[in-house]
């Protein structure tokens, strides 16, 4: 074994130093908390999606005639096919749980701020590609929700002036989502977007390692005191990523797999949230599901789309609002100019604003998922449910965008009163 190591080392001398640079000699702040598990968990889920995806592709048939049947074939006739399918569908939803929490960490602790704007932008690109990947993946079983979801989302592009209708036809390759659409979505979902995703993830990590990790206190360890028990030239409050964070992240992996196993083996449809009832009926262009709604992870953005009304004869404002809601997140490094990174030391106004962001995001999700449409008639019997829902949804849309407007004003004009940021990180053991 040692000889093998020397043999490789002689021919690829930079392999070992690269491993050291990114693992055993990558020094990360020692005060990572719960919120710091989600990056490595995202990688775990990505690997799961790829491996289970490859095995699904071995039996899935991509034609509009056979797709639905092939999924049932996998569920029943292929040995352990049901497990591979559930691992893939559960993984898709858990991917978004992990990614949302991962992004929220970034917002809370100011990990998007200088010098980590590039890490944040790459992360936002990953988020966009992930949404496209998930959308296309959901179309593949060619259930009734697959079809109608595809129809609604693709038709959004029809609101673009002049090129809209032509664009929609071009995307579908037909006059409605059909075999042509399904096949190209298959190609994009199975190989094109995964390759892009992998590339972006590599760049995301490379960009992070260039500038080093942030931490829950937002303390800049690189410009602080030097000298720890492993290396006198490295920050005093940083520890080698390997073995300390590899070992810690593995515990997170264990917990996560436990939760995933509960879902996969005991509640794989998750009450209809992970695998929707309507998708157990084959695609039918003549019968619309009673409630068309996208998968839960799109619901906040879908709500914004619905809540912004049409005017001047076009519905494009909702589309602009929907994409704008994601653009706002991407622009955070330039909207939030506060010097202090972490919420722990930021002004009360920021903490309230952050709470408003979370509440509005979850509320918009409830609207988009049809939860409010169900609850409002129960809570306000006899009232006009649509009016109430629109009022609620529009207030929440304003609140969501209001967060970004507030942050800009709050930090650009010096209204924020921050607490002093300590020089050393704070640990709670």
């Amino acid at each position, binding site marked *: 074994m040692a000889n093998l190591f020397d043999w490789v080392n002689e021919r690829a001398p930079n392999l070992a130093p690269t491993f050291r640079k990114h693992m055993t000699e990558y020094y990360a702040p020692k005060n990572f908390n719960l919120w710091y598990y989600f990056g490595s968990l995202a990688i775990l889920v990505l690997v799961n999606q790829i491996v289970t995806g490859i095995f699904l592709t071995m039996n899935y048939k991509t034609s509009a005639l056979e797709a639905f*049947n092939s999924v049932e074939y996998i569920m029943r006739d292929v040995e352990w096919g*049901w497990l591979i399918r559930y691992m893939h569908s559960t993984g898709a939803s858990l991917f978004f749980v992990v990614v949302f929490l991962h992004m929220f960490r970034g917002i809370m602790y100011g990990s998007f701020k200088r010098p980590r704007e590039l890490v944040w932008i790459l992360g936002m690109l990953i988020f966009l590609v992930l949404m496209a990947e998930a959308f296309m993946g959901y179309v593949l079983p060619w259930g009734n929700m697959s079809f109608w979801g595809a129809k609604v989302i693709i038709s959004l592009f029809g609101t673009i002036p002049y090129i809209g209708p032509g664009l929609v036809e071009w995307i579908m390759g037909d006059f409605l989502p059909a075999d042509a659409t399904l096949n190209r979505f298959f190609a994009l979902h199975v190989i094109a977007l995964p390759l892009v995703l992998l590339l972006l993830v590599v760049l995301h990590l490379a960009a992070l390692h260039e500038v080093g990790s942030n931490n829950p206190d937002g303390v800049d360890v690189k410009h602080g005191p030097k000298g720890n028990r492993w290396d006198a030239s490295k920050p005093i409050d940083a520890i080698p990523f390997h073995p300390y964070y590899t070992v*810690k992240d593995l515990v997170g992996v264990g917990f996560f797999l436990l939760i995933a*196993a509960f879902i996969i083996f005991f509640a794989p449809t998750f009450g209809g949230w992970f695998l929707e009832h*309507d998708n*157990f009926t084959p695609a039918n262009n003549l019968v619309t599901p009673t409630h068309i709604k996208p998968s839960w992870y799109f619901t906040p953005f879908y709500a914004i789309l619905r809540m912004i009304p049409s005017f001047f004869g076009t519905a494009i404002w909702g589309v602009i609002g929907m994409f704008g809601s994601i653009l706002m997140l991407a622009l955070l490094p330039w909207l939030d100019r506060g010097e202090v990174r972490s919420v722990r030391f930021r002004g009360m106004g920021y903490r309230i604003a952050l709470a408003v962001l979370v509440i509005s995001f979850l509320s918009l999700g409830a609207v988009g998922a049809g939860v409010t449409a169900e609850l409002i008639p129960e809570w306000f019997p006899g009232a006009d449910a649509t009016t109430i829902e629109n009022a609620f949804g529009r207030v929440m849309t304003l609140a969501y965008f209001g967060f970004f407007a507030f942050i800009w004003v709050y930090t650009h004009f010096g209204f924020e009163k921050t607490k002093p940021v300590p020089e050393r990180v704070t640990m*709670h053991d």
Partner: protein
Amino acid sequence: MIKRYLSAMALALGLVVATIPAFAAEGGEGLPSAGTNVNDRASLQRGAKLFFNYCVGCHSLKYVRYSRLASDLGLSEEEVMTNLNFTGAKFGEPVISHMPADSAKTWFGKDPPDLSLEARAKGVDFIFNYLNSFYLDPSRPVGWNNTVFPNASMPNPLWELQGLQVAVHSEAKPGQESVVEKLELSQPGRLTPEEFKGATRDLATFLEYTAEPAALERQSVGVWVVLFLALLTFLLYLVKHEYWKDVHENH
């Protein structure tokens, strides 16, 4: 310090709350629960018998193979081929009804749908209540209507067992149509109402199984997986704790 624990608790609580939808009753917009148990093999066998006697004349189960029924329901090949296989298929072949599609369209107005996935699409509660809610309705082409699925194109397949059920309409308000207030038996069937509920429950259980045969297996495998992961996570924690002594002693 407290704020830190609060945020961790909020996160954990949020995740727990988020799991509530998983355990929400499937299907059934406020319909009484069917009370099915897919792990009750006797119920599955009774339900299968009912299905093949009363349903397969019109409805296929195209994703279900007779051979799979045998192994999942604990029946021998002979038992399945003699007591269940009325479609003349080979043992390994799927359950396909011989109702010709065009005849069905003429008689019922639409093709009787395949029922393999009905329990996942509509829910067991829907199926159970639907089967219990037929009533005679001369205004309909097939002579029957259903309170759970109004104007369904199908006659009551189980009327011999249930008996004849009629609708009692409420007083019609001016300008409005009268609604069905309740259903009652005008003529008894071969089964008592309690027995009939049991029979429809068995049928619903059988369809719950056909919608997801893997359900029989996944729970028993899942127990082992969860136990194993709990052990592994515990061990991983011990390793983490051991290595992190280096970090903690350093400040």
